[in-house]
């Protein structure tokens, strides 16, 4: 079952309120996405930790209905 880009953004911003998310539906199939995520809350965290925060926001969607999401995190000031 596909997932809409807006749902992904909502889940991320619910968990990381200051996050700015630029999402691209790479194949136009609601299945392959790339998200650039900007947040101050990434400060002091390693890349692995930053990505874990995002995965936590997506809960069991990641690796489930959401098969292919590539992410890049940016720490904002």
């Amino acid at each position, binding site marked *: 079952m596909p997932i809409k880009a807006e749902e992904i953004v909502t889940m991320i911003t619910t968990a990381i309120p200051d996050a700015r998310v630029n999402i691209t539906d790479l194949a136009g199939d609601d299945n392959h996405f790339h998200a650039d995520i900007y947040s101050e809350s990434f400060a002091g965290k390693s*890349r*692995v930790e930053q990505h*874990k925060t995002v995965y936590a926001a997506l809960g069991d969607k*990641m*690796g489930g209905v959401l098969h*292919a999401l*590539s992410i890049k995190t940016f720490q904002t000031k």
Partner: protein
Amino acid sequence: MSENPVFTQIRSDLSANDVVLYMKGTQVFPQCGFSAVVVNILNNLGVTFKSVNVLEDEDVRQAIKEFASWPTIPQLYIKGEFVGGCDIVKEMFSSGELQDLLKDKGIAIKDAA
């Protein structure tokens, strides 16, 4: 709660091999685009690595996600340490961090030039 028994196998693979990639498919025939990207990067650097095909072992496929608290495959480990998934490895390769990390850990890589 007792530990997942598959962790013992994972730990022994990680201690026996400097670089381990948990992936979908094999080094020769990756079966997922994200896994293929990491294989290409490691090949490009001339790094010898052990790969574990999670599609052949459902127990390992589930256990490795729990092991790293990381929900996706591929997962790259260097000297027993979880480095990241496809996105992070790609970013580190572009910035040269991956090359530095490998050199720091005493793992031979091909010179880019």
